[in-house]
Every structure is written in C-alpha cells, then in structure tokens.
C-alpha cells in the first residue's frame, strides 16, 4: 500500500475540525481548545520532537490520509521510543531514538483523536488529532493481518505434530526390532518436529517432561521417559534393551499432545513469547550441548528451535511490519544471519544433517550463542507491540 500523501487531501481546509494543542499537558483533552499559533508545516508530515517532558508535534492537527511521522529526540536521555496510539493499540512506532537521533514512519489515519506516547516522559501521552474526511486509502487493518498469522501458526503447529506422531512410529518399530542403526536414524528424524513446537507442548504441564525430560532435570537417565531415555539407551548403553515400553509410552504421549493441540487458537502475544521461548531453549541447552548429551546431535535441535521461532515470527511479521517495520527488518535480518551461520555446520554424512556438537570449537559456540542473542533481544520486545491489537 502506498503511504504517499495525497496532494488533494492536503488542500482540504484545516479549520473545519476542532484542534487540540499539541502541547496540551492533559490527556483528557477538550474538543474546543483552539491553537494559539497558526498552523504551520505540512498537514501530512508530523514533525515530532521528543523532550524529557513530553513529545511535541509541530502542528495542532493533521489531515486524514497518509501521515509521515518524523521523530527526533532532542535531549531526553530516558526516552528512546515513540508510539502513536489509538486507545491502547499501537498503530505505529519508532524505537532506538536516543538523544541526537531521528527516524520516521508513515501511517494511513482516519480523522479522530489519537495519542503520541513517549514512555518515560514526564507527560508520557499527548493528544494527536487528525481532521478532515475519512481517507480513501484503506486504513491498515493490523488486527486482521495478525489474526491471519495466528491462524496460520495454528495450522503449522498441527502439521508439525502430525509429522511428530508419524515419525515416532518408525522409531518405536526400530527400537522393538533391536536395529540400533535404524533406531538412531529414526530418533534423529523425529526430534526436530518436537523441538519446533516445544512452547506449545510446554503449556500442557506433564507432557513436556514425559516426552523430553533430560538427566539434568534431576532424574537418573534410566528413570527418564521419552526421547532422552531412548537416546541414552541407543548411544550411551549401546542397546535397545528395555526401551520398548519407553517407546510405546512416547508414542502414546505424542498422541495425547496431538489431541490437546488440535484446534487451538493462539493470541499474537503468545506467538511472540513462544518465539522468544524457543530461542531461550537454544541458549540454555542447545548451545551448551546439554540437550543431546549422548548423541551430540544438538545442532539439529538448535536448528529446529530456531525454525519454530522463525515460523512464529513470520506469522506475526505482516501485521507487526505495519506497526514497526524497522523492528521486523531487524529481526528478519538477524534470523537470516543466524540461519546462514547454522548452514555452515550442515553435514550430509551425519544422520542429523549437522556436524556433531563435539566437533564445534569454542569460537564456533561463541558465534552461535551471540547470533541467537542478537535475535532474541529485539524479538523480546514484540509481544508488547501486538498484545493490544
């Protein structure tokens, strides 16, 4: 959609609508205040200055249609962000604006009363008035975009769980047949489907430990259930002995997960939190080599966590980009950098498709950890942007 302002619109009369002083300190604005100075500047360009007291716009009101916000921070050391709010909904924003820095974004706005929000200012909210007639350009429906995203994420989750259930079957069969090589290959094949959807599984309290608990969760390896009991048997003990009932229980547990997760509806903020949760998983147990301590196929889980996180984000991205395209660009770029870093460790000769964790140097691990943190930091801010849409 074009955000270029229309020349036609800018010729509309300004005085037609009530204006609110941009400098008015009260959020409870009254409709009959009149500007004390004559309007200056372009009614489709809001030049906003952030000060420690509040955000100040250059006009008392702006005209409906495309409005570009040019925001600069003069001297407010405690403020680095500007948002335009409709009620509690963030319509657009700019982050990373310390004193001496400027940025811009554009929105299509209908006539109405909005608020400029500078978190940290003495007066954090200042009215922002748009007058004129409703814009012919459709106003961005961020909510619809985000709802499409959450629905599509739900479908992704269901598909991954279907693959999980399907790929646990050959693992059960291989374990029962005593074919160690086949069982190891089947294990590596099934793992990523679980790692991609882990935050969803974690919402069903007992299922995640049953499926995925590790020895460092306080249990001896032989007391474990689920994937890592099988991993311990196959790699550490080198035998499938005693694993058949474990495999059967795993199959039954992933079946339960499938029933519970079918038809679920997600909130945009849940996707955002889940995406961060997956990267936390990577930082906590994959980048350290703890998750797959017997098989050392940690990079496979690593990649699956990242992919699950990226999927959640990708489903939010169209809506979020309407709110803050700089933020979505930053996150996308950093995900891409992480993906290409991971690609360096792909190894077709390994059943997991990646080099073993034990082959990584300390510098490799540091680079991977940094790359994950580089995504997680901006990603951690997403939930708050989409929670009130």
């Amino acid at each position: 959609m074009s955000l270029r302002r229309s020349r036609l619109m800018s010729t509309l009369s300004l005085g037609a609508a009530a204006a609110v002083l941009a400098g008015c300190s009260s959020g409870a604005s009254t409709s009959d205040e009149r500007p004390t100075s004559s309007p200056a500047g372009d009614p489709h360009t809001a030049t906003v200055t952030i000060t420690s007291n509040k955000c100040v716009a250059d006009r008392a009101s702006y005209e409906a249609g495309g409005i570009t916000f040019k925001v600069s921070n003069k001297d407010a050391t405690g403020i680095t962000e500007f948002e335009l709010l409709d009620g509690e909904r963030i319509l657009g924003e700019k982050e990373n604006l310390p004193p001496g820095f400027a940025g811009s974004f554009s929105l299509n706005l209908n006539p109405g009363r909005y608020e400029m929000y500078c978190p940290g200012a003495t007066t954090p909210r200042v009215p922002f008035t748009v007058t004129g007639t409703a814009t012919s350009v459709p106003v961005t429906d961020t909510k619809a975009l985000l709802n499409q995203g959450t629905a599509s994420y739900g479908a992704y989750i269901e598909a991954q769980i279907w693959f999980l259930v399907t790929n646990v079957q050959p693992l059960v069969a291989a374990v029962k047949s005593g074919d160690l090589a086949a069982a190891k290959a089947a294990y590596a094949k099934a793992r990523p489907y679980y790692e991609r959807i882990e935050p969803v599984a974690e919402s069903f309290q007992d299922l995640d430990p049953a499926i995925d608990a590790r020895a460092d969760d306080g249990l001896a390896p032989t007391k474990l259930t689920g994937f890592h009991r099988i991993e311990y048997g196959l790699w550490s003990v080198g035998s499938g002995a005693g694993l058949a009932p474990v495999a059967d229980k795993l199959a039954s547990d992933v079946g339960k997960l499938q029933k519970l997760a079918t038809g679920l509806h997600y909130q945009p903020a849940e996707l955002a939190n889940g995406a961060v949760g997956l990267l936390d998983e990577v930082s906590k147990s994959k980048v350290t080599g703890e998750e797959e301590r017997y098989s050392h196929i940690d990079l496979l889980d690593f990649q699956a966590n990242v992919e699950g996180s990226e999927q959640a984000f990708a489903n939010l991205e169209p809506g979020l980009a309407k709110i803050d395209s700089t933020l979505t660009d930053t996150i996308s770029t950093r995900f891409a950098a992480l993906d290409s870093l991971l690609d360096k460790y792909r190894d077709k000769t390994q059943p997991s498709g990646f080099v073993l964790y034990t082959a990584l140097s300390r510098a490799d691990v540091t680079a991977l950890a940094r790359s994950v943190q580089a995504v997680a930091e901006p990603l951690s801010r997403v939930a708050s942007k989409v929670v009130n849409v």
Partner: protein
Amino acid sequence: MTEATPRSGPSRRRFLGVALGAAGVAAAGGAGFGVARATEPSATEPTAPAPSDQVPFYGEHQAGIATPAQDRLAFAAFDITTTDVHAVQTVLGSWAAAAARMTAGEAIGPTETAPQAPPADTGEAFGLGPAQLTITVGFGPSFFDDRLGLARKRPAALADLPTFPGDALDPDRSHGDLCVQACANDPQVAFHVIRNFARIGRGTVAMRWSQLGFGRTSSTSTSQETPRNLMGFKDGTNNLKAEDTAELNQFVWVGNETDQPWMKGGSYLVARRVRMLIESWDADHLADQETIFGRRKDTGAPLTGRSEFDVVDLSAQAPDGSLVIETDAHIRLAAPSSHGGQRILRRGYSYTDGTDPQTGQLDAGLFFIAFQKDPRAQFVPIQRMLGQHDLLNEYIKHVGSALFAVPPGLSEAGDWFGKSLFG
C-alpha cells in the same frame, strides 16, 4: 515524593490489568524502584545541586580519567559484529543516553513499562544511588579497520602496541574494537553498566572480554591516600593528580598536536592484565621485596627516605658505594627521570578471578590502566624498559593488553561517544 499525580488518559498498565500502586517510594536521588516517572523532575529542568556521590557526566573531558579513583571497576571490551555504521552509531548514542542516566543514579529508561515487554533497565542498581559512577568509552585500533570504512579517522597515536619483552598475552583477554570503563564506589553499580551496555549493543557489538577490579591501586587526587597493591606495596605514590591541571594538559589530554581533531580533549587508555605470581612473591624475603620495589613495605617510603612522599633520591649511595635504590628497582625504572620526564596517569585496580584451574594458584594481580596523550612517547618506552629490566618481572606476567582512543567529553544530551569521529 510519595504520590503520583493523577494519570492523564487511560493508563497503559491499568488497561493490561496490572495493579501498580499510584504511590511509589523514592530513594534519595530519585532513583527509587517503582517511582512513577510523572512525578520526577525532567532531566532538562534545573535540579538541586548534584549529591556529593555524583560525578558530572557531561564536560570537556570524559569522567573516569582525572576523576579521583573510585573503589571498584567493571571494564569490558566489545567487538563490532556488523558493518552497519548507523547501527554502531545508534549503540553509541544509546550508551551515551544510558550513561547520563546511570551516572545520575537513575534507571536507563522508564520503570513503568508494559507488562508484556522486558523492563528497559535490568534493575539491579535501583536505589543504590550514583556511587560516584563514571563511564568512559574508547575506540580500539581495530575499530578503524575496513569494516566501517573509518581508516582515515584513525589517530597516528593509536598505533598498535608493540610486543614487549616478557609479554604472555592471551588473545581472549586482549584488544577489542570498543572499551567501556565503569568505576564506582559500589561494585553492583559498576557491573550494572557493563550488563546494560552489552544488552543495548546486542546484535551490533558483542563483549570480547571483561574484567572486574575489586580495589583501586592508584590515587589520582591529592585528597586520596596511596592504596596498596596485592603485593602489599604502595606503588604509584608519584602519580599524576587531578589537581595538577598543567601536568594533565602536558601528559594526559590530547591537544592541538593531534592529527585527528575529533580526539582533541581526549586521551589514550592502555589496559594491561598483570597477573602476579602471588605464591612465589609470598615466599620472597622482605629485604628482597623492598629492593625490588625500592620502597619500604610498611611505610611506603622510598629506600632513600623516611616517609612515603619523601623525594626519591635515585643517586643515593650506601656506605659501600653501591646504589641504595638498585639499577633495576621498579621505582627507578618507572620514574619520569628514567624516561626523559615522561609521565602517565595510572588508574589501575586489583583483581582476582579465582584460581588457575591448572595449578591451583591464585589468579590475581593488577588490572593496570593508564591514560596519556600519546602512548608512543609514554607507555611504550616506559613498558619497554620495564619489560626488559624490572626486577619485578620475576613475579609478574602480562597476560592481557589493550589500547583505546578515548574521545573528549560529551557536551550535553544529544552528543554521544565519538559523534565528531563520524562527522
């Protein structure tokens, strides 16, 4: 400050169903946990005189150089992980804003944020006050390589340090594109800086190494006593002092002689992690320890005097005709008269990082920091001589090394670290 003014418009947090009382208890200095920002004076309004534990952040020179040395240090070197110049500038700008807040004892951002967003400030310094915090930022030689296209901005004085005799440098504890020196009288206040700077920089800069210093080893003011180093000696009695304006101009602050105008008013920071071989030192007898330093251990007096500040007489002879202060004693080799009158401002800290996993020996020593106008004429010749001859070398090992160009002070909010460097 007890009652927040009624909020204008619907509160974002109330909307989100989070009950946060309208009242907050403010600590002295206005940095209290949970204080509604709306009641705090703005940073630009005239405020009460700074409390005595606050060091001004803005000024001609960066604080943390000629500032009387605080008790604790948190130091970190960062590497740039991007080629995006704007991203680097934004981090430097955000660091400057955060530094202005932290040195005033304030949280770096609003303490009232949406429950769904991580807090702007990590919070561990809330209520601790400014604790005389200073934050000093510098640029390493590698900052000026081809990644950001800033090679032509590299000062000649920022020449890579040569390898010195006896260097046993660990690359993981050396060098870096950027440095941050945080000094305060509270260790948590100093640590808070490094942690939040690392967080602000994530994705653009990454921490390369860091060092905590638990006690100052230098006095940089005539009002301060000379502290003892971990060898038990007073070393650095004749350090440059904040009160010696003329000497600071002569030896510390970069002046018109620089080839890079952006460095005028700045200085050069040399950091060396000097591990002390504590166990061996502790087995050395007192007379030898005193010979090595050239000072008495108890009083700190030079071997040619009675009290700490007595003039060091390097030519004094014992009855048998030998020099009282040995040819290679530390005090002689470090003396300005051994280096054509050159001096440096020392601002180091004692450190310990536990035990050496291999030998079980203490990993402890001096995190040496020195500021100067031109390392090529000051630190380099001094260390070359010390590295070659110093009697102390038997008991120390230089295991980390770094050099940084520290730009001048920030003029006001809106200025940031190295702004004129990018101009």
